[in-house]
């Protein structure tokens, strides 16, 4: 975390490529209003070396079905913010076809995010998270698509792994069906992005094993992989595994 702060400090700013400040500014315009406002507030604080509120806090996803829903909501927030940025600052050499498809994916993820926000009781829902895409070069096709592949494959593995953690009640069955409706779309995204990176890698052996099974990942594994892209510390220890 201190590394992140150092990277964002004024001292390091001159060393940054041009795309970073552009991306940060346009992110506020394109990301959801709440997330944008939070990002603005928090990044403003980070520039205050030694100021009171230097780092975003810990976000606890909770437990039970709400915990699983918040888990999905956190991942969808991350994906939605990422693709909003991709659409706002398209990478060099993006084709018309790629732009159209990535714009559609950005919409799907925004819809997923907004849906979870609406579906989870406000009192239990996690707040808007602050993404950290400092490791992504949004002007570079490979950097963008590689990150997208990570997010999509991670999303698929996360939903697959969390299905059995949802309660076996009538309500739980509805949640499971809803999660199923979303995960196959993430699978479609993953396949498309993978094919863009390497034609024919839509279900490569790095994600689909010899038994023909996609990944099923525990929340601990997923959150460890997602954490570098989120400024808040995500605590998913009560979701189950």
């Amino acid at each position, binding site marked *: 975390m201190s590394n992140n702060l150092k990277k964002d400090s004024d001292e390091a700013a001159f060393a940054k490529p041009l795309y970073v400040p552009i991306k940060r500014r346009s992110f506020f315009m394109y990301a959801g209003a709440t997330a944008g406002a939070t990002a603005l507030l928090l990044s403003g604080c980070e520039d205050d070396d030694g100021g009171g509120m230097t780092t975003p806090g810990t976000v606890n996803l909770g437990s039970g079905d709400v915990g699983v829903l918040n888990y999905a909501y956190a991942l969808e927030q991350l994906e939605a913010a990422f693709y909003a940025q991709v659409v706002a600052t398209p990478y060099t050499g993006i084709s018309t076809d790629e732009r159209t498809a990535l714009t559609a994916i950005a919409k799907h993820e925004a819809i997923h995010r907004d849906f979870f926000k609406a579906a989870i009781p406000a009192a239990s829902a996690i707040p808007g998270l602050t993404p950290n895409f400092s490791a992504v070069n949004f002007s570079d096709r490979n950097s963008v698509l590689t990150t997208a592949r990570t997010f999509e494959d991670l999303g698929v593995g996360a939903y*697959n792994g969390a299905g*059995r953690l949802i309660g*076996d009640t009538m309500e739980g069955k509805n949640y499971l069906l809803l999660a199923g409706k979303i995960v196959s*779309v993430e699978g479609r*995204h993953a396949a498309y992005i993978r094919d863009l990176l390497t034609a024919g890698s839509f*279900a490569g052996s790095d994600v689909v094993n010899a038994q023909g099974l996609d990944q099923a990942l525990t929340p601990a594994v997923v959150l460890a992989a997602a954490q570098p892209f989120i400024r808040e510390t995500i605590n998913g220890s009560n979701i189950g595994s």
Partner: protein
Amino acid sequence: MNLFNIISELEKVDPEIMDRLTHRRSALTALGDISKKMALAAAPIAIGSAFNKAVGQQTLGDANAVLNYALLLERLEYDFYVQALAAPTLAATLTGADRTAITVIRDHENAHRTLLAAALGANAAPAPSRFDFGNAFATYGSFLTFAQAFEDAGVRAYKGQATNIPRTLNPTVGGNVVNVLTVALQIHSVEARHAAHVRVMRRAPAAGSQTIFPWIINGDANGAPAPVYGAGNPVATFPAEGNLSQGGIMSLATGLGATYTAEDVSAAFDEGLDNTTVVGIAGPYVRA
């Protein structure tokens, strides 16, 4: 072809099948009076219907029924790709990267049927003698259309059964304890990857650069059989792919605090499909 042997096999899966087949059995008996040629021509359709009755019940009673249903679909998909890769009509067009991709998909379907059969053990239903896909392999385009239909239907079929699989069903398969729900979800997302890739293949210039995306927009069938994308039964649980209502929110296009197009909302969610409708789609290709 031994019809009664098949029916008795079906009885093991579904004890009540004879009740449901009574009407059909008299139809089959009647067929005996007609010429042998006619009976042979008509029998495959009857068998397809018998399978519909066996695994197309309104609710699949237990986990074995769910798994046998999945097994039949995986066998169908596997055989579809085996036949496609061997089809002389596709030798000149199903080549290069496309052939490699279809081989990958075939291998996954093979792994799925093997895994499901192993999970079922002695409870596995007998495999149909063959699958007949008619003129599906006549052209590269028709092959891809069928592939899209089977993959998208497969995605819908798994999704439709996920809630019928107990969370805590953990059989030992090949020495490993597996959670059946998790395995079903793992297969489900692989089918979605297949569907997306087949759609990318259909979008390519070789197949005519159609206006088609890896995801399903507004429930458009893009030339595939309409029931693959239509509503199932009951409609409230299994809406058509063009559905905009989720989780009690009537329209995600207008109900989320931002306005989204029907195109994007429908594509953002895939829908489940009941087994009766799925077997209605797949049944005609099943032969005794």
